[in-house]
């Protein structure tokens, strides 16, 4: 059986758009400890990119602030928290609606939360106007097929 991974990490970086790629690469390197498929890894990177971009363009509105990304691995699950101390969200339910954006002039499409929700198993939003926003996301990394096969093989030989 695969060894159980338990691990944690935390990074803080300035709210500059060049750090969107930094956040994606960092989370991919960390999540790879769970042996995700290429597709699962792509989903995680995309969801992180959405959350981090939101902190930069909506939370801080391109002023300089700090974006925090924390992640932990437990068994087959990755938990990711991304937060800012920016302006906060007035109406969270409305913000989560597909195509809802407060920045159409910046060519935003209002699909960020929809993408996070469809690529991750769960997405939770906490926000206080004037204080900031925290996004918590979870995703289970499926066990690879191979491993199941070798498990059942072991089961047969044990009999």
């Amino acid at each position: 059986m695969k060894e159980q991974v338990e691990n944690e990490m935390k990074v803080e970086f300035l709210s500059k758009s060049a750090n969107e790629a930094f956040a994606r690469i960092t989370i991919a390197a960390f999540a790879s400890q769970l042996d995700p498929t290429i597709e699962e890894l792509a989903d995680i990177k995309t969801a992180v990119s959405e959350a981090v971009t939101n902190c930069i363009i909506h939370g801080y509105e391109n002023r300089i602030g700090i974006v925090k990304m924390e992640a932990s691995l437990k068994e087959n699950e990755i938990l990711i928290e991304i937060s800012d101390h920016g302006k906060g969200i007035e109406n969270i339910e409305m913000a989560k609606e597909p195509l809802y954006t407060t920045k159409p002039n910046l060519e935003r499409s209002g699909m960020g939360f929809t993408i996070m929700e469809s690529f991750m198993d769960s997405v939770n939003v906490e926000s206080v106007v004037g204080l900031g926003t925290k996004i918590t996301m979870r995703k289970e990394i499926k066990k690879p097929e191979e491993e199941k096969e070798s498990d059942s093989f072991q089961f047969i030989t044990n009999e």
Partner: protein
Amino acid sequence: MQTKFYEKDKLLLVKMTEEIDDNSVQKIRRRVDYEIERHMPKRVVFDFNSVTFMDSAGIGFIIGRYKFVTMLGGKLELANLTQSVRKIFEMSGILKLIPVTDFSETLVS
């Protein structure tokens, strides 16, 4: 990698960069619009063949270019969508509006 442009017979081919996010879109938007205005193409094809990552910034970017090209009387198409790029575009519904083609560069070279 830089965005690349090829033009022939009122067709403009735009080869998109590897990573499409808020950061890269901010850098290429003005240049893309400049090339569109300069050539006034009948057809603008965005080629996603080399794209390895795209988030919602790509949706906003394409909708913005769609409006711009349409306003100038041209048609916009998307070409060579990878599976992950297609997944993101499909979610937004814009593929109902914008045709997707398999496009070969040899058409403009």
